[in-house]
């Protein structure tokens, strides 16, 4: 699924990045296949979205999050 579709608080693993003018920027900021991401915050109107990525918070527009493919982890592993 797309990173933009992931619900707040759910964790997913990055699978791949679509080709886009901002692919390199995303990679530099740590969006690399295999990395875990968790959406934690949405701006008013649901865009941009802030993600927990590695040890920091990265925000990006919905548009940019559309270009990142992720595989959600089973919620049973991390919800209480």
């Amino acid at each position, binding site marked *: 699924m797309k990173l933009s579709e992931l619900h707040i608080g759910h964790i997913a693993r990055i699978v791949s990045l679509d080709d886009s003018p901002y692919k390199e920027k995303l990679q*530099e900021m740590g969006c690399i296949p295999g990395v875990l991401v968790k959406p934690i915050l949405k701006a008013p109107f649901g865009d941009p979205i802030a993600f927990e990525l590695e*040890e*920091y918070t*990265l925000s990006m*527009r919905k548009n940019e999050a559309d270009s990142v493919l992720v595989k959600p982890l089973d919620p049973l592993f991390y919800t209480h």
Partner: protein
Amino acid sequence: MSQRLKIVLAGNPNCGKSSVFNKLTGLKQKITNVPGTTIENKVGKFTVGDTEIDLIDTPGTYSFNPKSLDEKEAIKVFFEDPAPDTILYVADAANLKRNFFYFSQLAQHNTPMVLVLNMLDIANFKGFEIDIDRLEKELGIRVFKINARLGDGVKELKKALAEQQFVPHYTFGSENDHTHESHYDSISKLLNKTTTLKSKRELISNKIDTWATHPILGYLLFLVVLLVIFQSVFTLASYPMDWIELGFGELSEYLSKTLPDGWLKKLIINGLIAGIAGVVVFVPQIAILFFFMGLLEDTGYMARVSFIMDKMLRGLGLSGKSVVPLLSGAACAIPAIMSTRNIENWKDRLITIMVTPLMSCSARLPVYTLLISMAIPSDQYYGFVSLQALVMLAMYVLGTVAALVAAVVFKWIIRHDIPSYFIMELPIYHVPRWRNIWLNMWQKSLSFVKEAGKVILIVSVVLWFLASYGPRADKTFSIQESATLEQSYAGYFGKGIEPAIEPIGFNWKIGISLITSFAAREVFVGTMSTIYSVGDEENFEQLRAKMNKDKLPNGEPVYTLAVVLSLMVFYAFAMQCMSTLAVVYKETKSWKWPAIQFVYMTALAYLGSWLVFNLFH
């Protein structure tokens, strides 16, 4: 044996790099302009034993493939001659993986490096343990723990910088694979060997964010922050501004008594001193605004403002990152335009540059103050809302709305294929690092005085000449005498443009002021004082009375409500600032954009004034 070392400070944004720089160099630092560019490098000097060290600070950068102008400037220093002896890399210990990415690229350069781990307190709070000895062994370079806020570890670091340093021998990526993936892969392996995560605790940052980015409370908070800032800019700054005006008044009075009469005396008092005073008087307002901007940036709140404003601004052709320039524009467009450098997308950046001068800057303030006091009654509503204050507020709203509308127009006009993006770190909240904020305020204010000062000084002298001498060579005129000002070059110019400005309600006297205002808008008040022979330039009350008494040949007053409102609208929109145009040229590297800016703003001003004049006439 004494030696001189060139050390470059590098690191990601928000890693505490400036704290390290300030702690290492103390106050011995200066901003240098690299010739032919707008690059500003901060250079600091310090000595260890008999080693002299030049420490060069660079803007925070995420990678060696620059995306924004800021980042382009950051990496230029690595290609300079002589090449740096050592790279001092500052990393946020609480966010090591991403901080190591830029490090991994710099490590390819065969330059000795030193790694400084900053913000270990936060790393420890998050539950990270970092094995420094192991990290040193893996990388093959010296690694230092430092708490830049408190200054812990600075002494040891300083001493070590004079010693022999090493090129990192850890391999990031592989011989022929330097993709982002391979670098991050190597970084993960390195961190697995050197760090352990004991427990994960949630930072208070995340809790603040639920409020700061709340759909209602978030905007409300931002509004309150804005009100506090503007209230401070106007009230706090008024005291030092009064002192400055008083000081310059005394100075010119003293000089007029002591200097021998002649053209030189007039040049010094009416040209030079008046010009310098015109710049310096704005420093308090600008400094206070820079102080708050620095505070909001340093604490991390500004990133949240960009975050919640992005969606709205995007529709207007701007981005969340335009917030800082637009707000700074309320103090002065010059530093505001310089602060657009961190906007990656060229079109977003250009539109921000083009519309920022429409925000009501502090130079318009004295013009509005004079004009409002002339035409708007000082009525109070409900005991505390003053009509004059409301009109003043309306002028600020007018400027902001004009800027946003202009942005939409430019969005349609400017063609650019690369879509804009907004990929930004939300740094964790920090207690303000006051020292950094003060230094930043001081340096930016100083650079304003230098940038704007040069232009305003030159133009003031030219204008003084134009107002003091006339085409009839048989006699020279004193700038203090209004009857003769009419016959000076400035007077001829004023009369020359009178037909053009008559439709918007202006006469030749206003015409002269429009010309002189091109140096800087606030010159309007000074020119009016000259025309109406008000000795003390700052005596608003006297000037206002004289202007209000001025009559047309047919007995009607010159400054009717229609004329005053028309003038206010003209000053709100017109591009009457040479320094801004010069900065736009520097930042866009072309005369095309300042030319377009000048034309569109002047056209907007003329149209707006015409409309207002005819509505109220």
